[in-house]
């Protein structure tokens, strides 16, 4: 069962390289659907651990696996339509980098599926070294995706992504080794790296090495998660990658890196060092929120706008877990909400980019007139991403805020609310400007065709985001609370 989850997309990725174009486009969403079905099955029945206990599905992993698989399914349907529409052969770049052509379809599909396989492996890892290798694997599988449009800017983004994330993740490996040393110098005198043994041995671990391990892993995996000040690769990669890839990066990959930090947090929690790790998480989280909020303000490019919004939301997640208690549960809930909303917004941004051929906000006007469905989705997405009722983000941000008021103190609450307010102003100003008004010259009254493959997936994600604001299904509530308990939080 566990192996099937990892191997299905991996085998499909190999198949994608040899199958002809038509079959490949069917294979892609089909594999995603099979993966989603397997995930559902695995979440309902607790599957046995595999690979000598190194791979398994615990409460925390279940939440992340479900989110990853769900987002991937929606995006794969969208991407199938996207590949259909992309013209093969050289064409001129709308943003002025000369002529470019896309990488082959086969590479896109194969890398996407390999990417899914690696992210699944991250969620299933019960061993810190496997976790590390899997997160590094996600970097390598996704780098060719960012360079799908073969022009200079995407190459620059790919280079930054590869270098910054590889170095960052290397630092997380050092943290993993620190953990082993903490075990050797601890009460048991043994070097262990698997989660179960570490959780058992946690109270006896050597404290200085353990703290060092957490700091290194926070910086290392935080680089990949996009926490400020290590976030510099994120806006470039998100804006240059095809929108379907950006949606996966924001909706699933950042979560996987966050899982790396949460695993380390689990150990510190069990070792009685929850306060140390909590303070660090709150500091990095608030820094990300504040920095991203001000970069959102006045941002001229709508995909970078969404990317910085992701940095901000990653900050919210870190703050929530750092505060603990009900805020941690809020953070876990927010993770689900943010993935739904941000994946949806990137897909919508892709639709707008396809019609307007520009990412500059001031050159986009009248989305509502030209493409009404996309325009409406922009509005819905805007309300969801800034956390206004009745969307799920409202509830989850409220839970984190309540935690900030109760345990964080005045400064944390003020910074948290301030960043949210600044981001609200920046996001709503940009999005409302794009949606309203009349399209630039010659397009008055003209409606562009909106293929259902590119509107249905974001519509479905938006519906889910709305549903979570009105009613949280019992099983999801259970998973969220269990995941929050695993990282030292409580119910809500």
């Amino acid at each position, binding site marked *: 069962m566990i192996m099937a989850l990892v191997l299905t997309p991996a085998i499909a990725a190999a198949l994608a390289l040899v199958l002809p174009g038509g079959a490949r486009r069917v294979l892609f969403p089909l594999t995603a659907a099979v993966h989603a079905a397997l995930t559902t099955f695995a979440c309902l029945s607790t599957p046995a651990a595999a690979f000598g206990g190194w791979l398994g599905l615990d409460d925390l992993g279940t939440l992340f696996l479900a989110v990853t698989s769900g987002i991937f399914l929606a995006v794969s349907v969208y991407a199938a339509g996207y590949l259909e529409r992309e013209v093969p052969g050289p064409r*001129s770049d709308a943003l002025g980098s000369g002529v470019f052509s896309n990488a082959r379809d086969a590479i896109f599909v194969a890398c996407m599926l390999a990417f899914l396989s690696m992210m699944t492996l991250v969620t299933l890892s019960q061993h810190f*070294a496997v976790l590390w290798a899997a997160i590094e694997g996600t970097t390598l599988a996704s780098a060719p995706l960012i*360079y799908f449009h073969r022009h*200079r800017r995407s190459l620059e983004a790919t280079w*930054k992504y590869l*270098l910054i994330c590889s170095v960052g993740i290397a630092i997380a490996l050092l943290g993993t080794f620190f953990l082993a*040393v903490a075990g050797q110098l601890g009460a048991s005198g*043994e070097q262990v790296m698997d989660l179960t043994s570490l959780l058992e041995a946690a109270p006896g671990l050597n404290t200085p090495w353990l703290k060092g391990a957490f700091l290194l892993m926070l910086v290392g995996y935080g680089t990949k998660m996009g926490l400020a000040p290590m976030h510099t690769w994120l806006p470039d990669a998100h804006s240059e990658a095809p929108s379907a890839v950006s949606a996966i990066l924001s909706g699933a990959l950042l979560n996987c890196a966050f899982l790396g930090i949460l695993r380390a947090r689990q150990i510190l929690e069990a070792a009685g060092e929850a306060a140390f790790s909590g303070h660090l998480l709150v500091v990095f989280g608030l820094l990300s929120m504040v920095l991203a909020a001000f970069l959102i303000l006045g941002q001229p490019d709508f995909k970078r706008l969404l990317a910085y919004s992701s940095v901000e939301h990653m900050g919210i997640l870190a703050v929530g877990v750092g505060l603990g208690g009900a805020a941690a549960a809020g953070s876990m809930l927010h993770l689900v909400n943010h993935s739904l909303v941000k994946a949806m917004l990137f897909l919508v941004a892709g639709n707008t980019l396809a019609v307007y*051929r520009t990412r500059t906000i001031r050159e986009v006007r009248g989305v509502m007139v030209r493409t009404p469905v996309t325009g409406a989705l922009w509005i819905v997405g805007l309300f969801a991403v800034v956390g206004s009722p009745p969307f799920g983000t409202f509830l989850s941000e409220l839970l984190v805020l309540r935690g900030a008021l109760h345990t964080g103190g005045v400064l944390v609450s003020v910074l948290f609310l301030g960043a949210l307010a600044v981001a609200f102003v920046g996001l709503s100003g940009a999005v409302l400007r794009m949606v309203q008004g009349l399209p630039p010259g010659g397009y008055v009254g003209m409606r562009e065709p909106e293929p259902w493959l590119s509107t249905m997936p974001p519509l479905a994600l938006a519906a889910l985001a709305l549903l979570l604001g009105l009613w949280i299904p019992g099983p999801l509530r259970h998973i969220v609370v269990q995941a929050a308990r695993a990282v030292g939080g409580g119910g809500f």
Partner: protein
Amino acid sequence: MPWVDIALVVLILSCLRLLGGSRLVACISTVALQGVLLGFVPLALHGVTVFSGVALAALTVAVKALLLPWFLRRAIREASILREVQPIVSLNLSLLFGLGALAFSGWAAARLPLPPGAPSLGAPTALFMVLVGLFLVVARSKALTQVIGFLVVENGIFLFGALFAHDTPWLVEIAVLLDVLVGVFVMGIALFHINRAFDSIDSRRLHELHDLVLDAPSANEGTP
């Protein structure tokens, strides 16, 4: 035991050479030398006892001292890269940074309790290598030199693992090696593309992506 210390001292010297060296090929050879030493250190520390240890040492040398340097040399040839490093921070200042980093590594490592049986020079050397690698990534302008910097960071962490985390299952160590190998290969492919697209692998030419200034020409230029 003294053999390990000698290897560690040579590793420190090799890092100083990387900081002060001006020829790319010499830098690549230095990284290859580090690879040989990294294969040697675990053997010298634990002795030749089990087959898996020897196999792992051989694999380390094969990947870090033969395969990756060969690949980087090939990249220089194929992309006809100029054979000199282009430092953003001058070589003399780089060496000065090296001395500072060495002092800092010694100070920082002394603050952590040492596991029994580990060489006292181990933690400072590993930390020093990581710092030098990070410095090379930011202080050298060529994309290829940044790859060398990344390799030095990896080497430092690998050394730490070999010295302190010796109970790591061999499967994990192979996975680590494999990740580095694939990582550098992917970087190498990106390097070829950078060279083709920019006629140079100077990473300072990679400067189109930034915030607030987006000088895009007219919107509807592309084929709709």
